[in-house]
């Protein structure tokens, strides 16, 4: 286990270095910060001075070496847009995103297990049909559109919930549901089909022949086996949320998280902030993957950690 963790951390470092290189190149392709940050009336001298100030006048090789060196010291430079260290901005916004993911994905995970299992108990029954229908519905709806629809209905028409922004628990409801819906749909479908498979396995017949309570057969025997694919998909959902879905949801609901900040950083060609965001997300994804591998081993002893 210890050796495994060390190896995975070393692999993770390689991934982070690779991501760093890509970020360096990509952020320089997004747009020229000099053009975006300065007014149209700025003179060529002013532009050159600004480029020099943020170090964009140096040869690309020098920029890269400095960039890697700074990164190793977790110095991402100053956000051009917010005029303060980029990492400070990231660390200020990250918790908001994690809270949103926690609420949304937590809801999806907690609901999908019982819903999928109940549907699987009677394949073709009304619970199953309803679940599949709602699942397909959830998969087919574009997330941004669903979010807007919810705002129009629950916030504007009914006035029950705030339209956007972050505050008390009420502010979480709409963005969390919007974030949860497609994940919930995918997870429910997986739990359902996996449970149907598992309930037809011979070991389930053994468990029933032992006279065990039905609840134990389903929730311990079959569910434990279903958790193996479930953790894979849930991990994928977590990574996708972190690296993509929150950008959409946070933008729709003006949620002050990392996704919205990434969107704004791109709009403002704030390449230092963007670098800090992408670096942080990459590190988180590496950590999540190592965590998933450990959970796998815990659920299914046949899995070998290598």
């Amino acid at each position: 286990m210890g050796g495994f963790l060390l190896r995975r951390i070393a692999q993770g470092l390689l991934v982070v270095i690779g991501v760093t290189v890509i970020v360096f190149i990509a952020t320089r392709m997004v747009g020229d910060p000099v053009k975006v940050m300065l007014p149209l009336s700025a003179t060529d001298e002013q532009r050159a001075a600004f480029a020099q100030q943020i170090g964009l006048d140096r040869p690309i090789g020098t920029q890269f070496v400095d960039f890697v060196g700074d990164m190793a010291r977790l110095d991402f430079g100053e956000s051009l847009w917010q005029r303060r260290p980029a990492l400070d901005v990231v660390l200020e916004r990250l918790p908001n995103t994690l809270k949103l993911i926690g609420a949304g994905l937590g809801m999806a995970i907690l609901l999908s297990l019982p819903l999928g299992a109940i549907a699987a108990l009677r394949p073709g029954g009304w619970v199953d049909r309803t679940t599949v229908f709602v699942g397909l519905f959830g998969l087919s709806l574009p997330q941004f559109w669903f979010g807007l629809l919810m705002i129009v209905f629950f916030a504007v028409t009914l006035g029950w919930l705030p339209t956007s922004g972050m505050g008390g628990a009420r502010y979480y409801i709409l963005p969390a549901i919007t974030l949860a819906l497609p994940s919930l749909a995918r997870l429910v479908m997986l739990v359902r089909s996996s449970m149907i498979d598992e309930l037809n396995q011979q070991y389930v017949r053994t468990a029933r022949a032992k006279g065990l309570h039905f609840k134990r057969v389903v929730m311990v025997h079959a569910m434990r086996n279903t958790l193996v694919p479930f953790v894979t998909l849930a991990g994928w959902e977590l990574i996708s949320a972190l690296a993509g879905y929150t950008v959409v949801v946070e933008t729709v609901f003006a949620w002050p998280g990392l996704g919205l900040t990434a969107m704004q950083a791109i709009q403002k060609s704030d390449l230092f902030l963007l670098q800090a965001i992408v670096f942080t997300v990459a590190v988180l994804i590496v950590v999540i993957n190592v965590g998933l591998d450990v959970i796998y081993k815990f659920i299914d002893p046949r899995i070998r950690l290598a």
Partner: protein
Amino acid sequence: MNISAMSNNEPLLEIDRLKVEFDTRRGLVQGLRGVSLSIGRGETLGVVGESGSGKSVTAQAVMGLIDMPGRIASGDIRWKGRSLLGAEGERYARDIRGKEVAMVFQDPMTSLNPVLRIGTQIGEVLERHLGMTRKQARTRSEELLAAVGISAPGRRLDQHPHEFSGGMRQRVMIAMAIACEPQLLIADEPTTALDVTIQAQILELLAELQQSLGLSIVLITHDLGVVAGLCHRVAVMYAGQIIETGLAEDVFERPAHPYTQGLLRSTPRLDEVSDRLISIDGTPPNLVTPPDGCSFQQRCPLSGEACKKAPQLAHIRPDAEAACWQPSTPAWATPLMSPSISH
């Protein structure tokens, strides 16, 4: 039409004119067509027949494992005189299954839950039926593993099924089955999936347990040698019905039903040279539309006009029954061969 129990006391398990149907796309398959059986205390009954004859369905019906699209259409299953069917019967059945009557399945590779520890899988039976604490169950599980011949049982309890060989897994299955000291063990082809050398060991273990625990055993198999070695009585099934039953040695010495004769005749032997394997011509009838009359008539050399009417199981000797209009008539010219005793 019950087969009389060997012992004088009331039978443990009685199956009474049981009919099981499967509603498939091809039509209503009549899996069991009126099966009656009874097993007394300490008795070993072999149930033989080819695939699809209804051996396993009978066992599944007793253990409550007939799932959609199958259902018990009529008949009754009684444990110590009480029905296991119907709402009240099912409640009773849940308490005795795994405790008083237990089952060992054919494929030990898939019969254990791959992600649960062996100790958990044995212990849960003890916790469920005997109300043991986790700690007590663990101590008892260790004893059980030792009883079925698994060494270092304490360490083995914490292992998972993939760390056991096929034979060892079947021993675990047996340990699980005898955990609550049941009176009846149903073994559905317990050795079919195992190597020949392991087969003998498992059968020996079953024989030992029968002695030490006073178990009754229903042994379902298509291996006549296994029956000859282990069973007092044998019931031969064909097309969802029992067509012959009697003491094992009698049935092998002088089979009454032509199908039993054919079955014994087609058992290959090691001590005789023959150029080819003998089989019974034809295939078993389609159970969606079973024939009127005797279900074996299309394949039977003796079939005649009388066979258009279904024969019922009838006594041919005091302790033997056969469902045939011409019982004990040699159906094939070749001399009969009784199966070799397997160990």
